[in-house]
């Protein structure tokens, strides 16, 4: 296993060291003393297991394709942002915009996430072991979000497609987000997904999808638009 002590290195040096190890054929890399710094293990385009032993700052694992990243600590804003494929697991809590704009892959946050998790998701899976904050799933376009705890205000506001499962209370649904009936097989799949990632969740979930009212222009809104422009 390759190991990198981040303490004495700049962020650029840390990311270069990861690439050097990958180029040398290493497929298991451990980062020690990350010190909550930003942009660690970003844009990794290889199937490689990276473990970060401590908290990270913004955008950890972002823009990666194939990474298997485990963060033994909390994560700041935009963890796994724009992930294409692979898995990013955060043991602690995550800040705003977790898994923002991901196109594929799986992001698991075992603790709570703050505002705008899964914003503009275009695919993939976001699993939240705890609760999620304001505007989770805002404008999501595809993919799944599973929230084991409570959801904050404006859940799934203006979502196009995709689905959000919530185990706890929903403070308020966002614009054009509606509760839909989840089939038994769907719920079984949610439970299996949680079990696969070792996340303890409730047995019952509510399903939130797009009401599709915002999909099309409504003539009734004409006057509003005229006033706006």
């Amino acid at each position, binding site marked *: 296993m390759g190991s990198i002590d981040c303490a004495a290195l700049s962020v650029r040096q840390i990311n270069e060291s990861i690439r050097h190890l990958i180029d040398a054929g290493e497929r298991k890399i451990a980062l020690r003393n990350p*010190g*909550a*710094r930003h942009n660690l293990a970003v844009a990794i385009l290889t199937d490689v297991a990276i473990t970060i032993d*401590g*908290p990270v*700052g913004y955008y950890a694992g972002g823009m990666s394709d194939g990474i298997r990243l485990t963060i033994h600590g*909390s994560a*700041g*804003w935009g963890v796994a942002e724009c992930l294409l494929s692979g898995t990013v697991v955060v043991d*602690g*809590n*995550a*800040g*705003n915009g977790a898994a923002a704009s991901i196109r594929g892959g799986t992001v698991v946050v075992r603790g*709570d996430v*703050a*505002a*705008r998790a899964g914003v503009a998701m275009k695919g993939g899976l976001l699993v939240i072991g705890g609760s999620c*904050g*304001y*505007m989770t799933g805002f404008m999501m376009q595809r993919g799944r979000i599973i929230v084991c705890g409570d959801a*904050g*205000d*404006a859940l799934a*506001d203006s979502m196009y497609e995709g689905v959000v499962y919530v185990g706890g209370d929903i*403070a*308020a649904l*966002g614009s054009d987000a509606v509760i839909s009936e989840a089939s038994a097989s769907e719920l079984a799949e949610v439970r299996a997904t949680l079990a696969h990632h070792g996340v303890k969740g409730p047995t019952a979930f509510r399903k939130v999808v797009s009401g599709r009212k915002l999909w099309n222009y409504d003539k009734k809104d004409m006057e509003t638009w005229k006033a706006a422009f």
Partner: protein
Amino acid sequence: MCGIAGFFDKSAASGAGTGATLLRMLTALGCRGPDSAGIALWGQGDDGLIVRVKLGDGGDREARWREVIRRARRVARVRASKVQGSLLRLVVAKTEPADLAAAIERVAPDVEVVSMGQRLEIVKQVGAPAGLDAAFAVSQWTGTHGLGHTRLSTESRVDLSHSQPFWAHGTPDLAVVHNGHICNYHRLRRIYEQEGVRFYTENDSEIIGLYLARQLAAGRTLGEALRTSVNELDGSFSYLAATADAFGFAKDRFSLKPLIVAESEGCVAIANEEVALQAALGGRYQAREAAAGATGLWELPGRASARRARRGPRAA
């Protein structure tokens, strides 16, 4: 951007090395705000008032500080005085704060009382956090709690007066650090000015302390003032505020600025990047991004020991 940091020792042990802790936090946040740095610290205290005065750039400095002391003596007994960096520190016997500030600021237009209180002291200047230690030895300061700020100016000028923390001019012991923009600043400023409030800068952050001061003067607690501010201040903000016996934060309803809170049995550390929490607490804490519209308040023992934090009003 701007870096903000706060540290609160729940045990109320005023001997704690709060200055060194805040300096480490600020150094970690240095890249968020490279133009100015400042620290507010609530120390051992005095039964009179501790005053920090900006001497300004004009005129003969020595003549200036002698004149400041002479004017202060007309209002109160001056127990101690010392020039440090670009600030004069005075300890005066109990007196009417407004009279004292007015007497001092009459020396020259660019002479400003930067902080006043029984426990509060603010030092700030243009430059990196390291400069604060060189000029004011803040790493040696002790106190129960403190605030720190590194500034990246976006709209108003870069000088000592425009840097943070901001003392809420006129209200002893109340100070604020802010990251973000207050968009209804000009509207509120016009209202406040019509009511006789003086503004010392063109920095929108200055209005937060003045807003809180007005709420406190109307009989509200700091906790209540933080909660109402979430709706009455418009814009993007994460800010920290403290008085001699309470310490808290508020975050805007859209969570546009980061604010990470870490609480342990003995202390609370808050900053807008976790690098600062690492600097303050090492590895022994759980970090949590504050929710949209959230406020939090901690009070020193003797007032109320339990944490009082709650979510702000619903934003949807």
